[in-house]
């Protein structure tokens, strides 16, 4: 049996285990990574298998992250886990100023082979300080490679690539996707860290997204099948952005929708639109459309979050509008609005 259906978190654990088996320099550092269901199950059982390589740490994100960076500089391949991006910000100096600049500031030849696994984004009941995604912050940081796995299969392949890479790689894992399922190869494999993926080919318009926004767009396809032929692109990497793949698609379709699950200012979508807008050779059929979140923090009450994130219906209607077609009415259930998608991705 080489393929079976597993979840996003199981895919991360499998990749971690497989890379640790072959690379003795890989160590994991983080809070509760040695616990039975540690790091949302992504390190479950690894402490028993690798007792000296799963490092339980104090609640000291700055020093722990710095220790991992220092270990990477001197030859180890650490994976640091931050369960919430807000806590990773305690280590901002070590991520943005030390790891990201180390090779450049010493004129090259000084690799920092470290992986930061950082959980981000929406989750019911978590409110303004537990649900930030901060994609633009990481996208703007020179010297980091930043990827966002949108599916279990990407989560596995990108983690393996990240550990093999000699540069600091940030994997922003949208918590919203943790229970997503997909057929994933049991064999170890890698996925390019800097290449966007055309998830579905199409001719009418291009939708560009990543992470949970990509999954909402994927679900929207089912609502407009037969009405709009969408080309769906998963950016995968937001640092650097694979503009070439986007441009190739928009040259063909002439229409662009971007989806962010953060507010619009300095967002990934606005960057992609700006890039496309600068292309002299390109004549768009319509002005690009950006779907994103309102310019307020994420509140807690479901009444207030109901209209916060772009939904599959919003995306479907944006596509229909752009094609001059009648929009649809579709009542979303409470589960669809507020609970993580329990989907099996093809």
């Amino acid at each position, binding site marked *: 049996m080489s393929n079976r259906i597993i979840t996003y978190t199981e895919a991360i654990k499998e990749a971690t285990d497989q890379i640790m088996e072959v690379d003795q320099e890989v*160590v994991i550092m983080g809070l509760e990574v040695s616990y039975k269901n540690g790091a949302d199950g992504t390190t479950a059982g690894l402490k028993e298998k690798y007792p*000296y390589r799963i*490092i339980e*740490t*104090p609640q*000291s994100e*700055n*020093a*722990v*992250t*710095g*220790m*991992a*960076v*220092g*270990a*990477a*500089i*001197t*030859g*180890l391949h*650490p994976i640091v886990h931050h369960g919430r991006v807000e806590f990773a910000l305690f280590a901002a*100096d*070590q991520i943005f*100023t*030390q790891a990201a600049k*180390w*090779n*450049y*500031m*010493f*004129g*090259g*030849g*000084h*690799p920092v082979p470290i992986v930061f696994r950082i959980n981000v984004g929406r989750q019911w009941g978590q409110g303004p300080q537990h649900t930030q995604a901060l994609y633009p912050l990481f996208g703007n940081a*020179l*010297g980091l*490679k930043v990827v966002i796995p949108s599916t279990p299969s990407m989560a596995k392949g990108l983690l393996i690539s990240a550990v093999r890479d*000699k*540069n600091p790689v940030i994997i922003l894992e949208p918590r919203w996707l943790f229970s997503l399922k997909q057929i994933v190869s049991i064999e170890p494999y890698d996925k390019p860290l800097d290449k966007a993926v055309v998830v579905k080919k199409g001719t009418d318009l291009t939708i560009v997204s990543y992470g949970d926004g990509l999954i909402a767009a994927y679900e929207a396809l089912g609502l407009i099948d037969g009405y709009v032929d969408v080309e769906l692109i998963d950016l995968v990497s937001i640092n650097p952005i694979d503009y070439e793949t986007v441009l190739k698609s928009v040259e063909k379709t002439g229409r662009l929708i971007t989806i962010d699950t953060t507010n619009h200012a300095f967002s990934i979508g606005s960057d992609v639109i700006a890039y496309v807008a600068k292309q002299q050779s390109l004549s768009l059929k319509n002005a690009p459309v950006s779907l994103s979140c309102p310019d307020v923090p994420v509140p807690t009450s479901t009444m207030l979050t109901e209209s916060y994130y772009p939904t599959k219906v919003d995306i479907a209607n944006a596509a229909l509008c752009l094609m001059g077609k009648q929009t649809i009415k579709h009542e979303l259930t409470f589960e669809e609005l507020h609970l993580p998608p329990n989907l099996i991705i093809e």
Partner: protein
Amino acid sequence: MLLGAYKKMFLIRTVEEQIASYYLKNKIMSLVHLCIGQEAVAVGVCDALHKDDRVVGNHRSHGHYLAKGGNLKKMVCELFGKEYGSSHGKGGSMHLIDTSVNFIGSTPILSSAVPLSCGSAFEQMYHKKSAITVVFMGDGAFEEGGVYESLNLAALLKLPLLFVLENNLRSINTRLWERRSSYHDTEKIVTGFGVQYMRSDGNDYLDVVTKVRELITKVRTGKPALIECLTYRHMAHSGPSFEEETREEDMIEQRKEKDSVARMRRETLASGVSEDEINTTEEDIKKIVIDAIVFAEKAPFPRKESLYADLYV
């Protein structure tokens, strides 16, 4: 033995005096933080180390780099922004590195080096190496949270790590007693985390080297330690100024009276080395320094295209 240490201290002093002069002529366009006055700490600590022990430095690390055996010409070239520099001109004075002597990098944001040094020590422990890591920080850095987190981490994981706290009484211009309550007790803080503590006269090479040797034997067995070295920074936080107008407590006379290099010279003489031998040694060192400066002035700048190189490995 003393002559060897004096040579290193005199080299650091001479290099920095030259750096000051070229900085004022706008020949060195890299912000410099001079360690004039603090040479006994750098040399005292590094003389107690083995070659495979690692050192992590900070913004004021010309002395640490040279004391660990870092390449002089590469350092001077780096300050002049030249391709031959230790960071090929991208780093400057605040980003020195010479991994061939295990000076694994200096990084200037206060206290950043401290968590990084935990990682180096972790790697040494992980691979069961006998070598240790040493990190230098100032009294300003000792007020950053990362240091306390690191003291806890080092004690918890039993890291082979020596923290060197160079207390020069000043963080930029602020004085120690403006920044700490009268109850502040460094020894209690450090030992409270389970890290060994010793205090030394940072203007006295022999006191530093003796105490570091004593501490290091335990550090090698996984018992981290901190040594606080009380010293003076003769010049401004950055740039070559003696700040005669702003300092009140330690006027130039006091600084000179306790000067570590002058003291070391006296002690070297007292140990039986002749005045002639010291004079000859000093002239030799001055020549080496001038050679390095001349070399750096003539050395080529990096190619403009290298601006875009090295963002990634």
